[in-house]
């Protein structure tokens, strides 16, 4: 009895000691080299999420190359599993001990980090790269200052099953909402469920409203709403009305309110991958997800098709604008200056070319676009590059608070329990609460 207690005490002590070491080692990271001038030894901590296979090796090579080109710089690479990285980053942001180089998803999340003094302003120091990658940096801009360099941006659109479309007699992918509704009717007539949507996870359903808002609201109105958090423009209500109209035609898979986005064969992606539905609104990750959800690892294979979100008749927005998002490299506020050189290097023609060749994402440096291997992704990339502008996912854009309230309200519209007005009200009251 006594011995076990003693053992327990020892174990507890050891645990506390480990905890203490963990805390202190977490803290040591970015502070040791704030001097950071030329000729001195500088260490950069870099967290990324390409933790397997070719992607991991490639980033190791990139880090080695940068070390060779910049004597005195050491890069400590941490290749983390994606969810782990997000959890660790959240904790790092809360304690203020961030790594020097990390990923930012932009929008309201970035704004919160900027206001907490966690991210370096790179407007001047990285101006050349910013000019090179163009308009997509808007999502990582806060009060006219740029805080991160997006390295992979995808757009959301409809992924569809070519053979099911053919079976239903649909020859052209729909370009307008009328055509989409007509296609849905044809699919239903052929006994095929038209669209899967992971409304159980909310964000896949919310993408519909984002797109309707993008089609209904002019770029100026949207920009104003993002800046002022004022959603009183009528176009937001029209977006909700468009959504209500679409939901009322019942185009979605059975039980879609509890369907999850992309885990398992009964998820929205799984239903598309296994030929149970004809299409799904999703981002550039969809082919990869579908490959993981089929036994032969090919997803829809040759039957994979993609078309952009249809135009909405009478909408004030640019009907070719795309909704998208991605990841960007940012430097910690107190990181040494060489950090900016490193993230610019990550966006260079050379590094982005390799990034594209290994299918690690959709490069933002246009010189690398030609090297994307996957044909479906290459098509999507062409649409992205031709888009007049790319609107960041609205939940990311508005931040977790308004974004979460907005997604919840949109999900109730999918359940036919909420209205267009409810979405705007939820966003307005969340904004008042900021």
């Amino acid at each position, binding site marked *: 009895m006594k011995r076990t207690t003693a053992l327990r005490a020892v174990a507890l002590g050891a645990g506390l000691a480990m905890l203490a070491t963990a805390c202190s080692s977490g803290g040591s990271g970015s502070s040791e080299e704030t001097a950071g001038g030329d000729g001195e030894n500088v260490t950069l901590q870099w967290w990324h999420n390409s933790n397997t296979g070719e992607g991991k090796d490639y980033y190791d090579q990139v880090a080695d190359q940068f070390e060779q080109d910049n004597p005195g710089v050491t890069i400590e690479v941490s290749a983390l599993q994606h969810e782990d990285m997000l959890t660790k980053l959240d904790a790092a942001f*809360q304690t203020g001990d961030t790594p020097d180089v990390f990923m930012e998803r932009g929008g309201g999340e970035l704004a919160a980090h900027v206001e907490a003094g966690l991210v370096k302003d790179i407007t001047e120091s990285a101006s050349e790269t910013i000019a090179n990658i163009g308009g997509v940096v808007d999502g990582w801009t806060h009060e006219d200052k740029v805080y991160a360099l997006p390295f992979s941006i995808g757009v959301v659109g409809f992924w569809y099953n070519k053979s099911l479309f053919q079976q239903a007699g649909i020859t052209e992918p729909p370009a307008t909402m009328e055509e989409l509704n007509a296609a849905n009717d044809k699919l239903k007539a052929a006994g095929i469920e038209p669209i899967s949507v992971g409304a159980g996870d909310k964000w896949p359903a919310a993408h519909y409203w984002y797109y309707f808002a993008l089609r209904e609201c002019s770029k100026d109105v949207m920009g104003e709403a993002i800046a002022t958090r004022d959603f009183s423009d009528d176009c937001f209500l029209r977006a909700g009305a468009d959504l209500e109209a679409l939901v009322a035609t019942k185009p979605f898979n059975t039980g879609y309110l*509890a369907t999850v986005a992309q885990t398992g064969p009964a998820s929205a992606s799984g239903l598309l991958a296994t030929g149970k539905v004809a299409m799904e609104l999703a981002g550039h990750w969809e082919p990869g997800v579908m490959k993981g959800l089929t036994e032969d690892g090919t997803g829809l294979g040759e039957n994979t098709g993609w078309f952009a979100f249809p135009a909405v008749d009478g909408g004030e927005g640019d009907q070719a604008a795309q909704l998208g998002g991605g990841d960007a490299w940012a430097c910690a506020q107190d990181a040494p200056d060489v950090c900016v050189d490193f993230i610019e290097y990550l966006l260079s023609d050379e590094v982005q070319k390799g990034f594209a060749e290994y299918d690690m994402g959709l490069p933002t440096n246009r010189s690398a676009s030609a090297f994307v291997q996957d044909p479906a992704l290459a098509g999507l990339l062409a649409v992205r590059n031709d888009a007049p502008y790319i609107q960041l996912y609205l939940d990311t854009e508005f931040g977790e608070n308004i974004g979460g309230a907005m997604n*919840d309200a949109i999900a109730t519209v999918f359940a036919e*329990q909420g209205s267009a007005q409810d979405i705007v009200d939820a966003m307005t009251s969340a904004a008042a609460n900021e």
Partner: protein
Amino acid sequence: MASDLTPRTQGRGPRGAAAGARTGAAGQASAWPAAAGPRDPDARFRSRQWRQRLEIAFFVTPALVLFAVFVVVPIVQAGRYSMFKWNGLGPMDNFIGFQNYANALADTIFQRAVTNNLLIVVLSIAIQLPIGLAIALLLNRSFPGRTAMRVIVFVPYVLAEVVAGVIWALLLQPNGPLDSVLDAVGLGFVKQVWLGDPGFALWTVIGVLTWKYVGLAIVLLLAGLQGVPEELNEAASIDGASWWQVQRKITIPLLGPTIRTWIFLSMIGSLQLFDMVWILTKGGPANATVTMATYLINQGTERSQYGYASAVAVLLFAISFILAILYQTFIQRNDSDDASVVRGRRKVSR
């Protein structure tokens, strides 16, 4: 009566009795070998008392430290956070008093969460108690395969909640295994969109919870049944009581304390319900199955509103705590007396 129940302190002299009373929790300590102490009884007593205190401190301190670090400090911290508007980043400097509490109490989704929780409390008891009691009474009779039956009945409770949740999510998916079974046995007409229908999802969740937790009721009640003296049954049978009469008039009343303890556990579990709902529905569709705990995660931490989340957590704690106190005060109040009545009767029957 009371002296009958404390035979160990009897005949030990007033001091021994006092020491026994004073050390309370460490009752075994009074069984320490007396021969080890010095001759003088007073000094021996003092030394023993000192050793007892040391021993208590030794055994209790680690637990107290853990309790303080992992229970008391977080509760106090949550109370502090709940007074601020804070997104978890940077300094916590926007003090807003009780605004977070006011916002939560005024939010219709939070009200729905509280209603759902209370509904689950009531229905869990109303459904699981009769089922649990019936099965426990059945399993208390001897028949071939009884042990196997007991194990089978308890399996759902032993299964990790997340695992059980994932299994049910798969079974309940549209056109999934459950629907196929219903079709196969000609019950296709009872098919539902089990988890995707805002009007039905809560009932599905309650069904799964019943499956998961009725095992606990059965095991506790079976344990309680072991404490019901066989002699009473025999006596009643001799007096001509049927099996039903014996159960109704003797067994169930004597199970009272066990039943009340189970109700307490079930109530607290229902109020803090999270895992199963999160796996099955995430509180959806359209907030149909939201509970206070899923509300806390969804509206609080996932939206980086740590101040608000803390306020909801404190409310959840307060509601559970108040209900627990009320329950203990008004319902479980007499249980110690009940227990002594049983023990008293037992003695009489000997």
